[in-house]
């Protein structure tokens, strides 16, 4: 009896404080969305923020499948793309028929485009989970992407379907010509979608989706048909992917076959996984990082996909929980107040790790630029890809950096274990 009463207070949470923290995080996020383009107001920044907003909605929709229901899809861009096409057609129809529908309502039609396809195709697709589902999603993705080039009247062939977002009826006097107005439209839909998708995780369906993810067999013995659960989750994922596609159509004023393709499907899987599927905010982090990397890397290196691959492999190997998993690992240490004991080890480990990273980058760029001969600029230092000095530098960074990094991370692990043990002794499990 005494064990129960002494251990309960630590596990029982303080509801008022929890509520405050919960709404505080959401409000801070919304505030950041409002203020960001005012602080970083250059055209490039606002464009980037818009892309990130779209990517977040898309990645969150993907996580309804992957993180919440345990469905690995290789064709999620189908719903995104069809949402984009639906939005473009709707915008053009609104303009040509003179319907009184302003631009901010268009993403809803994008969502419906993604939803309708999910409703039609989903029942067959979600019959089985696992490899079967993954393979079918790959097949459907290829099927739709190739159809989009053949069915010209719907998809506009190679050129795609173009539209003019400023031709729709105005709302609050906004024409949505300037990027900043489009950004706020995207931000509005991002907030709306994120709240809706979060709320979904807190419903009976959302909870049972997790149960289906963990153990579809047992779910059948508590009254649920896992097929129905997967199907409904799939429809929601399709809807919100369609919303993201609709936002993209508004942003670019075009929808084409690239929206639907395997690259787009791979990118959303990549973002969601890197961000971490186990936490709601994981895909948000992933979408931000991947969009930034994509924008940043493409301008400095021609082999940016290679870096994506390396990052992906690194995350899979060293942090299967993604960035969110890494962040949340530290929660018990923060609560127990032992995080401080790990930080020095981290700081020590950063130096050789950076050296190792520089060695990897240098090696990749030597190979990539060897025949062309254009110089490599690594943090302001110039290197010639054909010079032996560069090769030796790369080799030294790789070998010495790698060796020291290994040692220093072992020390981090030791420090970590000590801190975690103390945290556990103080009753903080997770």
């Amino acid at each position, binding site marked *: 009896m005494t*064990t*129960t009463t002494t*251990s*309960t207070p630590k*596990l029982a949470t303080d509801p008022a404080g929890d509520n405050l923290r919960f709404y505080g995080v959401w409000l801070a996020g919304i505030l950041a969305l409002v203020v960001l383009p005012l602080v970083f107001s250059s055209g490039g920044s606002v464009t980037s923020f818009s892309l990130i907003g779209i990517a977040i909605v898309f990645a969150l929709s993907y996580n309804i499948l992957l993180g919440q229901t345990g469905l690995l899809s290789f064709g999620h861009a189908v719903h995104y793309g069809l949402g984009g096409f639906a939005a473009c057609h709707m915008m053009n129809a609104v303009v040509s028929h003179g319907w009184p529908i302003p631009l901010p309502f268009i993403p809803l039609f994008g969502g419906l485009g993604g939803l309708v396809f999910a409703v039609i195709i989903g029942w067959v697709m979600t019959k089985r989970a696992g490899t079967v589902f993954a393979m079918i999603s790959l097949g459907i993705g290829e099927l739709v992407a190739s159809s989009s080039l053949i069915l010209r009247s719907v998809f506009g062939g190679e050129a795609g379907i173009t539209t003019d977002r400023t031709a729709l009826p105005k709302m609050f006097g906004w024409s949505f010509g300037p990027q900043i107005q489009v950004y706020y439209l995207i931000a509005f839909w991002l907030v709306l979608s994120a709240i809706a998708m979060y*709320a*979904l995780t*807190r*419903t*009976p*369906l*959302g*909870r*049972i989706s*997790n*149960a289906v*993810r*963990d*153990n579809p*067999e*047992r*779910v*059948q*013995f*508590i*009254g*649920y*048909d896992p097929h*129905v*659960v997967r199907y*409904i989750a799939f429809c*929601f994922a399709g809807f919100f992917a369609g919303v993201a596609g609709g936002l993209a159509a508004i942003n670019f004023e075009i929808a084409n076959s690239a929206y639907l393709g395997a690259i787009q499907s791979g990118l959303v899987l990549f973002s969601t996984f890197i961000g971490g599927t*186990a936490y709601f905010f994981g895909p948000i982090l992933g979408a931000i990082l991947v969009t930034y990397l994509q924008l940043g890397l493409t301008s400095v290196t021609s082999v940016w996909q290679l870096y994506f691959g390396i990052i992906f492999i690194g995350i899979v190997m060293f942090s299967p929980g993604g960035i969110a998993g890494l962040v949340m690992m530290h929660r018990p240490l923060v609560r127990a107040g032992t995080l401080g004991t790990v930080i020095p080890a981290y700081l020590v480990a950063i130096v050789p790790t950076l050296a190792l990273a520089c060695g990897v980058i240098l090696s990749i760029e030597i190979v990539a630029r060897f025949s062309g001969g254009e110089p490599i600029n690594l943090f302001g230092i110039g290197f010639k890809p054909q010079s032996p000095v560069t090769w030796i530098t790369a080799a030294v960074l790789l070998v010495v950096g790698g060796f020291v990094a290994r040692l220093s991370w072992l020390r981090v692990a030791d420090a970590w274990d000590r801190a975690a043990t103390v945290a556990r002794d103080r009753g903080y*499990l*997770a």
Partner: protein
Amino acid sequence: MTAAAIEVRAVDKRFGNVGIIRDLNLSVAKGERHAIIGPNGAGKSTTFNLISGHIEPTAGEVRLNGDVISGLRPFEINRRGLSRSFQVTNVFARMSVWENVRCAVLWATGHRYAFWKNVDSLPEVRERTAKILDDIHLMHRRDVPAGLLTYAEQRELEIGITIASGATVVMLDEPTAGMSHAETDRAVALIRRLTEGKTLVIVEHDMSVVFGLADRISVLVYGHIIASGTPEEIRRDPKVKEAYLGEEAH
């Protein structure tokens, strides 16, 4: 006269060419505590799988409260008021203890696939979940992921999930397997209390538990029930002595 809670009639089950269950007949009256005993590999778990819809009989039929249920899917059978546990712990490993039990409460409280209700603000769901957790003594572990529980705790959670829906027919497959004596005693007391007024079918190896708990006992050997009766009848049955108790009870 009312129908039996469970009625298994002439059921055969073959896996490929191997007949695992042969002409199985079993009747469990409403409100009865019925134990199935038999050596390892006799087909006790397979019988559970057949009744609960996990697998389909090759021949014969199963009835629940008079209605044929063989051929139905497990969730359909569960919705008709039959709930079972598993011999090998079968929980939702990444979800908390609280979530595990709550998921098992949701269908029975009528919330089904609802995506328009906040699961945290359903009072009857919360109360029922809390009651089950108190019953299985796991309230103090409510926030721990089920996969991190000790073995005995997982077995208790397994029972909790099984009874959470409030099913009137409860089937427990070796609920105390692997438990210490003290844990077994606690679990048996728990089972006795939680299945009060319900129909219970239990597979159990500990003979003192079986003879103390069961109203009736069926002995399964090589997929066939060789005897069915009260503990007294089973104890005296020469076939049972020879085939089963003979090797274990001495």
